[in-house]
């Protein structure tokens, strides 16, 4: 007969409540793991979506995500003519506050030339951008439905398509628009300011500036070799997609990643202490029963099994509750909670190890209980 299960059945309500409480704590820890993973996923979402092999940016910078980068728009033609380059597209990036039907939203605006690299790889609903200006494709995270109008700067844009899961490294949803629209938005001065600039002969006319050129290479082309070729131009720098990804994860979101990672470790440590205390309390509640078991001759393995099985059951049920809570609530989180089977499995192992370690103190205490403690009133 299984003493651990019998004891749990006997105090089922208390066990369920304990599991629920522990499940909530584990749900927080699991969410942190998901948010940690989400930061990395979000950081890479844009670069992966653009499927770029090479990022050509302003010389001396590591743009466009880690540092500001501005290069003339005609550089795109130069890059397109580099040996090994199959296609090249100019893009602009800008974070903006926009007026949406539901209120002010914060978005990352990407300008690109339809038909060239730089646009979303998959359209979830509606269509991609065509030749018409003042159209946008918005990510679902922005809350903009098809047909909605977005006021951005001095212009109104209509949502003709939506994407899913495309956010910037800061978690802001992406808005795709024509390069010309984005250049106007980003570089065109307001009428009064433009007049002053023209009067002072400080420019204000051309807006053909972009933040980066992304290039797709022929399958047999070596990205490093093409990058080296691009570097020969003095006013350009080039990063392979791998370098850009490393830059995004190791530099751009590094602080957030480390912060979340450390917080996750602290949470796991707190969880471990709480689990150990719960198991200890559960064991000490059975002091007389364990003493009786020893007195009637129960071997140590029976006592250890009782404590260990309850610890693992507690951890297991609480973890199942935690997974259910997180997966049912993950869409409510403002940022991506990236949890897949691998993360869930690794956390399950972590919880099992915590339960095993947490039960060691209780097992030691249980084995120290003297049989004579069963005697007397």
């Amino acid at each position, binding site marked *: *007969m299984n*003493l651990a299960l*019998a*004891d749990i*059945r*006997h*105090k089922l309500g208390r066990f369920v409540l304990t599991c629920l409480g522990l499940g909530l704590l584990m749900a927080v820890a699991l969410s942190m793991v998901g948010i940690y993973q989400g930061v990395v996923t979000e950081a890479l979402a844009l670069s992966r979506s653009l499927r770029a092999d090479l990022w050509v940016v302003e010389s001396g910078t590591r743009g466009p995500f880690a540092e500001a980068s501005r290069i003339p728009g005609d550089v795109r033609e130069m890059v397109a003519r580099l040996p090994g380059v199959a296609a090249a597209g100019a893009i602009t990036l800008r974070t903006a506050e926009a007026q949406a039907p539901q209120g002010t939203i914060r978005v990352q605006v990407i300008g690109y030339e339809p038909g060239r690299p730089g646009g979303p790889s998959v359209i979830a609903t509606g269509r991609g951008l065509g030749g018409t200006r003042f159209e946008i494709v918005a990510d679902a995270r922005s809350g903009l439905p098809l047909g909605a109008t977005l006021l951005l700067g001095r212009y109104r844009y209509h949502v003709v398509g939506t994407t899913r899961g495309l956010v910037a490294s800061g978690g802001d949803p992406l808005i795709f628009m024509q390069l010309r629209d984005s250049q106007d938005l980003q570089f065109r001065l307001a009428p009064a300011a433009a007049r002053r600039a023209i009067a002072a002969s400080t420019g204000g006319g051309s807006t053909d500036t972009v933040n980066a050129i992304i290039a797709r290479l022929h399958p047999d082309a070596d990205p490093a070799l093409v990058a080296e070729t691009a570097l020969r131009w003095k006013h350009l720098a080039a990063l392979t997609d791998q370098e850009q990804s490393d830059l995004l994860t190791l530099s751009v979101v590094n602080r957030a990643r480390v912060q979340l990672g450390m917080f996750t470790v602290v949470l796991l440590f707190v969880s471990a202490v709480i689990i150990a205390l719960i198991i200890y309390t559960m064991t000490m509640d059975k002091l*007389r*029963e364990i003493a*009786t*078991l*020893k*007195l*009637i*001759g*129960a*071997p140590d393995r*029976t006592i250890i099994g009782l404590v260990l099985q309850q610890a693992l059951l507690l951890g297991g049920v609480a973890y199942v509750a935690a997974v259910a809570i997180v997966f049912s609530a993950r869409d409510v989180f403002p940022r991506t909670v990236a949890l897949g089977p691998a993360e869930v499995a690794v956390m399950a192992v972590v919880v099992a190890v915590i339960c095993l370690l947490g039960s060691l103190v209780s097992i030691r205490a249980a084995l120290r209980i*003297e*049989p*004579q403690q*069963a*005697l*007397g*009133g």
Partner: protein
Amino acid sequence: MAGPLVQVEKLCKTFGAGETAVRALADVDLQVGAGEVVGLKGPSGSGKSTLLNLIACIQEPTAGKLSIGGETVWEGHWRVPDLRRLRRERIGFIFQFHNLLPFLNAIDNVALAMTLDGVDRTTARQRAGALLDYLQVGKRASAMPSRLSGGEAQRVAIARALVNRPQVILADEPTAALDSERARVVMDLLRQVAREQQAAILVVTHDEKIFDRFDRMVALRDGRIEQEQPRAA
């Protein structure tokens, strides 16, 4: 059985050492034979519980010799490698407050003692059920301890003590929580078991109402046997 099932010779127990040493038992000699029910009485601190703990092998004597079922268990040191196995196989315990496991029903509380000994659960439950019937609590086999009356719980505890057919049964105030009538019933039951199973039963008690149920009364005072009194004919 050639000799007594419980044999205590010059048994001593001292707690602590040096000036703070407390001698709980001094040169105690006691024998309990098969089928014999012996009562152990004495004021608080006289050493009754200590003697019971030593015979139960849950405390180690300081000097003397202890034999269970003819086998020397302690003489200078433990002579048996697995004391819990010895308790499981040869000694049954009955407690003042029954000490049934609250998370097992009556029949599983009894069967547990057998399953600990490696007997499969079905066989253990069959024997436990038969024993509960014998002790007239068979109808309460599926009841949890919290649902049993004091008398019923004590009978289940007796069944648990008997289920492995131990040679020795040690009882610590088994009737303390029972009224006079139920106390006598329990004692009669123990006498019956002693006769039928040829077990040696040693009972610690203060309950004068049941003194006449013992074959012998042993009185302890200040850690020594003060008096041995055979049952009046």
